[in-house]
Structures are given as structure tokens and as C-alpha cells.
């Protein structure tokens, strides 16, 4: 069974601190996405990672992909309150038979002053 596991599911941080969200998956990936979702809103695309060793950065967020370890990380540097949201990783595998477009359960991030 294809699995995408995010951890932690809940993260409370102080402003200015660093932390990493992990996304482990159980099969090969054609690509991996990270999204942000604010309460009651839709999903905002943050990053798409295509190959082993890919690293993307935007502001205080940096995402990486290790296909050998089947692991992607989303690193937060010097967190600010505006980063408070739920973050999802999204695995896309086109070689599978069915439904290989799987989201993790999400990490709810709360950044406190």
C-alpha cells in the first residue's frame, strides 16, 4: 500500500527558531510537491521537486528531495508568524495502477511571538 507520512502533525514554534518537517513515502516518486493551506482556504503551491538531490528555496522555506531515502524535507528558517498554516507534501507516481497522487496528512504549524 502506498503511504505518505508527514511528521510532525502539529508544530508549535517560537518566532526566530528553525525547524524541519519530514515527508516519508513508500514508493518511487515521479515528483513531489509541497503546498500551504490557510484555514478555510485552498492549497497554495510552494515547491515541486523533480529529481534526487533537488533543493528549492523561497524566502524562509527550503525544500529538498532524497529519492533514495524516499524522504523530502521542508525546512523553516527564522520562523515568523505569517508562516502559520498547514503544510502538505504531495507525492505523484504515474507508474502505479491507481490513485498514486497521494497527500500527506499535513503539518499544522503555529508560530508564536
Amino acid at each position: 500500500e502506498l503511504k505518505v507520512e508527514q511528521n510532525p502533525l502539529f508544530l508549535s514554534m517560537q518566532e526566530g527558531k528553525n525547524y524541519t518537517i519530514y515527508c516519508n513515502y513508500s514508493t518511487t516518486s515521479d515528483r513531489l510537491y509541497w503546498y500551504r493551506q490557510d484555514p478555510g482556504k485552498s492549497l497554495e503551491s510552494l515547491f515541486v521537486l523533480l529529481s534526487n538531490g533537488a533543493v528549492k528555496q523561497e524566502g524562509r522555506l527550503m525544500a529538498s528531495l532524497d529519492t533514495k531515502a524516499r524522504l523530502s524535507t521542508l525546512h523553516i528558517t527564522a520562523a515568523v508568524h505569517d508562516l502559520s498554516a498547514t503544510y502538505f507534501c504531495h507525492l505523484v507516481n504515474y507508474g502505479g495502477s491507481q490513485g498514486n497522487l497521494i497527500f500527506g496528512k499535513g503539518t499544522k504549524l503555529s508560530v508564536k511571538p
Partner: protein
Amino acid sequence: DAGVTQSPTHLIKTRGQQVTLRCSPKSGHDTVSWYQQALGQGPQFIFQYYEEEERQRGNFPDRFSGHQFPNYSSELNVNALLLGDSALYLCASSRDRYYGYTFGSGTRLTVV
């Protein structure tokens, strides 16, 4: 440039009824995927349409069906609604499945 447009934004239905949700993809996109997101959960993949055909399907019962039109817009139909079908339904479009997805704002379905 309009992004992904979904309608309606909110909907209340009674158990056993049928519902149709609509999605217009972003300009230039030809692939449409549908997701169900229950409160506090990650989105669950329902199915994906490309060239008016269902290309992939997640683990949803046959009560969930869809359609894609020649202009790439799409509909999601759910028959015999259950209370458990209450969720946010998200539509995502992409330019072929190899490109990034753009999500719509969703339709909030409440089944009473």
C-alpha cells in the same frame, strides 16, 4: 488570467440526494483532478481526467463519477449522498500531468 474556478462555493444537500460540482481549469491547462478533503485531513485523490477520459482513480466508490468536456472543464457527480460525504471538494488543473497543479478554492459540501 483566471485561475481554477469552482462552483458552487457552498452547498447543503440531504442524505440520498445527488450533487454535481463544477470546475473550470486554468487557461492553458488540460488535465483536471478532483480531491476530497475532510475537516482536519489531507486531500484524498478521487480521480483525474485528461482528454475527456478518466485516467486515474483513487479508492472511491462508484457513487463518485465525473466528466470532462471538450473545453477541459469538468464535473464531479456524487449519487446517494451520505453524511460522510461532507467535505471540501477541491479541483486542481495542470498542463499535462507532468506540470504543477493549480488548485481552486473548493466547494464546501454539507450533507444533512
